[in-house]
């Protein structure tokens, strides 16, 4: 994964096979994790509400207008742990 600035990242799940805490077509918040990125994984706040590592191939990164980020963050809360 490339390095991103302080802007928030979002991704849509395109492959939930075998994952009970992902839903295809749903938007997820992505948190920075360089170690995960170097292995082709993303740190995603999944349906459990916590952040875990999933292969980046299960997602498409979504570009969001800066003005829209606060609206998405309001409905995509940070992981509790």
């Amino acid at each position: 994964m490339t390095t991103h600035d302080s802007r928030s990242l979002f991704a849509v799940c395109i492959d939930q096979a075998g994952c009970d805490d992902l839903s295809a077509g749903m938007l997820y918040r992505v948190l920075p994790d360089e170690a995960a990125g170097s292995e082709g994984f993303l740190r995603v706040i999944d349906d459990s509400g916590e952040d875990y590592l999933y292969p980046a191939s299960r997602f498409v990164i979504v570009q969001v207008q800066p003005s829209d980020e606060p609206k998405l963050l309001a409905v995509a809360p940070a992981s509790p742990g």
Partner: protein
Amino acid sequence: MDFELIGELSEIETIAVNLSIREKTDLKARYGGRRWRKLKGVGLIRLPSGNTRRAELHWYEAHGIGRRKLKIKRFLD
């Protein structure tokens, strides 16, 4: 699953016994069982790339059901 656990887990700890209503309902509906707990441990995993990494893993367990929803929390090495 997106990885293969190689060998046994170590440093196993229970991190939650009082799961949220949502978690309990989901686990019972999917797998049955009672008294679900959330645990964490450390294990060696093989990734789809073929690389092996030491990782902190989280999962749920209930008596007689075994490990479910084994997920990678972070790479440790």
